[in-house]
């Protein structure tokens, strides 16, 4: 009896130790392909090998997995890439930068291209999670607007290449609301007599909501000053009565259907919904809003073959024609100056996609704050649990 217990105990310890060790290394997780490319890779690629591998003898992988936001490509893009290069692509999706980061830190592998936003790229570079790009394999980098080669988080595009960019502001229902508040004051200090009182949502995202509040208060939206944060927190708690909910998933539909009159959210989401409902408009309040850039990067842990294939894909996205398709389809702004040159005038001149300079200067990046993010999170928890 005694001995049996001992054996069981030892077995538990050994297995626990093994499991711990396995977690430290890499838990392999097969990504689910959500899109099966139709083209046959067995046939020799017709296009001339303009993207020939430069290093000695490395051939691109037959298939790569792109880890992306959902609905964030042009439906034909992957098929086109396979036709041009013979490399198959499948896609897996995440729903927030935090998801992406936590999953990769948890040891997920198998992804060759990931699409994180600016501040997450900064974190990933700092944590050593990204491969350096071989610019020889990405000749189309020359198509980038010079502005996007001098990014605060990755000057010179050493680790990443911008994919699309956009802004965070307010979308509203044009049928039910004629005069939306031009200042954040209307949102954070909504009166019961305001038609949008109780019929608006804020993003369920700590940094976005605090950025809006801090920008309204005239502070730096990446502040580490606790007194300023306290003030923003109190503003958000007082505003809570007038807020129907905190929503990052389908706020634009709720504005379209008329459940809510306005919502804090991302420009492309509202513009896509505007196509569907025909009654949505978007603007940046007079104090300003946030700006973000999503990027293509290659996570550490890929094989040289996968890395080459991933760089070929990044080069493909930078193609003027492909960049045009991608931007026009998603209503987000392309960082590619050659794509912009050939883009549809409606897209190019849409101030909601490409804000004019006087609005551009009022847009702020959300930057990573390291351990100080716990302070934001705790204040956000206070806002969310206030009755």
């Amino acid at each position: 009896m005694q001995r049996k217990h001992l054996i069981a105990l030892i077995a538990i310890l050994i297995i626990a130790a093994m499991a711990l060790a396995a977690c430290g290394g890499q838990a392999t997780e097969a990504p689910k392909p959500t899109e099966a490319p139709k083209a046959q890779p067995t046939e020799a690629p017709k296009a001339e090998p303009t993207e020939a591998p430069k290093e000695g003898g490395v051939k691109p992988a037959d298939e790569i997995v792109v880890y992306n936001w959902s609905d964030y490509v042009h439906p034909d893009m992957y098929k086109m890439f396979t036709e041009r290069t013979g490399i198959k692509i499948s896609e897996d999706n995440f729903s927030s930068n935090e998801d992406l980061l936590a999953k990769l830190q948890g040891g997920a592998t198998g992804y060759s291209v990931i699409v994180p936003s600016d501040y997450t790229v900064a974190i990933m570079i700092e944590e050593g999670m990204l491969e350096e790009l071989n610019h020889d394999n990405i000749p189309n980098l020359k198509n980038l607007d010079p502005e996007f080669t001098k990014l605060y988080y990755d000057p010179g595009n050493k680790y990443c290449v911008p994919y699309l960019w956009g802004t965070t502001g307010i979308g509203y229902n044009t049928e039910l609301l004629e005069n939306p508040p031009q200042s954040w004051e209307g949102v954070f200090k909504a009166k019961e007599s305001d038609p949008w009182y109780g019929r608006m949502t804020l993003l369920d995202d700590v940094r976005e909501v605090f950025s809006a509040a801090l920008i309204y208060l005239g502070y730096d939206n990446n502040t580490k000053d606790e007194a300023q944060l306290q003030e923003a927190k109190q503003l958000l708690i007082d505003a809570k009565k007038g807020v129907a909910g905190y929503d990052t998933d389908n706020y634009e539909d709720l504005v379209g259907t008329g459940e809510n009159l306005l919502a804090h959210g991302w420009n492309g989401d509202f513009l896509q919904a505007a196509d569907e409902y025909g009654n949505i408009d978007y603007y940046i309040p007079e104090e300003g809003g946030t700006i973000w850039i999503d990027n293509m990067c290659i996570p550490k842990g890929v094989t040289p073959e996968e890395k080459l294939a991933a760089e070929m894909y990044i080069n493909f996205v930078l193609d003027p024609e492909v960049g045009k398709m991608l931007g026009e389809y998603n209503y987000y702004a392309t960082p590619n100056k050659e794509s912009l040159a050939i883009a549809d005038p409606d897209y190019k001149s849409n101030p909601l996609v490409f804000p004019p300079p006087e609005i551009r200067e009022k847009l702020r990046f959300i930057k990573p704050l390291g351990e100080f993010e716990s302070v934001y999170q705790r204040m956000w928890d206070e806002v969310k649990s206030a009755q």
Partner: protein
Amino acid sequence: MTERLRRHPELQAWLILAIPVIFLLIFFMAPLVIVFVYSFLERGKYGGVEWVFTLDNIRRVFDPLYFKTFVRSFYIAIVTTLVTLILGYPLAYFIAKSPPSRRNALVFALMIPFWTNFLIRTYAWLTLLRTHTGLINVTLMNWGIIDKPLPLYGNDFAIILGLVYGWLPVMVLPIYAALERLDESLLEAARDLYASSAKAFRRVTWPLSLPGVVAGSMLVFIPSLGAFVTPAILGGGKSLMIGNIISNQFLGAHDWPFGSALSMVMMIAMLIATLIYFRWTKKSEDVT
């Protein structure tokens, strides 16, 4: 080898048990051990841990803000359990007393909702509960029964409704199983001894169904306490349960050790609550 196996039934039992035991060790025990160990380490800057011992995470759990959330989560889980019990018991009784030919069909009907993902079913409630475009409010307003929309969404009512809806079948099934096995002759005996039907229920049916009630309550209480999807969707993200706080620590604050500490304290609190409940039902079983 086979000869030895045949002669040692104990060895056979171990072989059969080996697979589930190894499975549980790897996928259940090991994660628990990791959570336990992480609770006492310092956070990495952006997730992960630094291998430095600290008690700070445990201390932070008793921050009044998080403590308040614990209390609130317990309150919501207890109300949910009571409401499912009040709704579920008569339903289980009805199914158990139906003719045997119909019973299976009824149990089957009870299981049908499980064919659809819980998340989708929760979203479906939204179309009913929305304040201005929800079916219930729109209908009541059109009929002139109310002139201001009822607050059906974005509050505790919606959260509890969603949880009760989701967990009702797991309350009904164990109670049904207990009631179905109930020996009718015991009730006849009670009536022969001049027990009123209320008294027969209280002294015979209820005590005999108690194991089902205990099992059902646990199956409802535990997931309700840890719920985080329902408060986010039906509660409009306007209130927090402990599950939301934990997930925010891992995702928003990149603070894995504190998230682990919160999970661990929640598991311990749940264990204590379960033990108290078992002790209490055992006592009431003994009394009757």
